[in-house]
């Protein structure tokens, strides 16, 4: 019963938490990550400093980091109720499942095509 007023004030604080300064900070993070990706794609890989076998997982990790910042801060999901966060995030496990299945499958396809 006492949880009611506290959640309301918490919510108000969180709204203020996403102020202009914070919005621009998230923007700089996104811009920075994109710049790192460009450095890898245009400098590190062509000059043979790292191979694309190393670069590709790095791209995926950086992309997921960007996704976290967009969904968490711009779409405000990080500040929603835990129930809503889980309702949105848990179904994404199906996507991960499909990725695993089809990655495995594609390794067989390449054998069939040879």
């Amino acid at each position, binding site marked *: 019963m006492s949880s009611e007023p506290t959640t309301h004030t918490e919510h108000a604080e969180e709204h203020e938490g996403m102020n202009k300064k914070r919005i621009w900070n998230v923007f700089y993070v996104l811009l920075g990550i994109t710049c790192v990706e460009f450095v890898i*794609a*245009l400098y590190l890989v062509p000059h043979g400093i790292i191979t694309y076998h190393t670069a590709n997982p790095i791209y995926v990790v950086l992309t997921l980091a960007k*996704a976290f910042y967009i969904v968490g*801060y711009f779409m405000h999901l990080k500040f*929603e*109720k835990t129930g809503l966060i889980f309702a949105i995030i848990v179904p994404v496990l*199906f*996507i991960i499942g499909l990725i695993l299945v089809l990655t495995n499958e594609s390794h067989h396809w*390449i054998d069939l*095509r040879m």
Partner: protein
Amino acid sequence: MSTTTTNIDEVKTTPWAGGRSPFSVEYGKMMMWFFLLSDAFTFSSLLISYGALRFSSSAWPAPDIVFKAFPYVSENAPLVFVGLMTFILIMSSVTMVLAVEAGHRNAKKEVVWWMIGTIIGGLMFLGCQALEWTHLHSEGFWWGSVPDIHKLFEFFADPKPSAAVATTYGHQFANLFFTITGFHGFHVFSGVIINIIITINVLKGTYEKRGSYLMVEKVGLYWHFVDLVWVFVFTFFYLV
């Protein structure tokens, strides 16, 4: 005995006790989240199919060769144009979230300006995409068609594959590229239209009368999702 009765009769106020949304978001906003979730599945299916076909291919057109043109500026600037497109879309996401922030303060004028900024960003992105499609089309790529074999070989990194292999995977690349960026571009286009409608409503004072700019927040969710999808398209089509 009497204490038990009062305990049962007592009105529960916990989040999951019923009578209100346990997620404490308005109905429309929650439905927007679930719509976006379903849209995420659609985009994932397309992108994962692309990934599976590409992983199982023995050769694939090299992104830094295919996307090396910056229309009207340079014929040899790999990935710079798509970098600009990414910047435009992230920028329009920022103006969108600033519009939402202004909505929380009920600052009507600011909401309008940030929304107009978002619409301009969306239109710029669509313009860039139109240029890129035109460029690829002029080189011979389209749904179901690839450039003639001599030109097509230019798009593959050394060592060059056989003509049959280049034609097969050139076709797969073209089909997947136009389908996936087309589907995304269509989302951007719908987003621009929806943003225009919402901006007109803001100007008419619809949300001022309603007392909340929640609609701006809802279209904001959609717009950020479009940006989010682009982040993935950018990585898997242009970088990997």
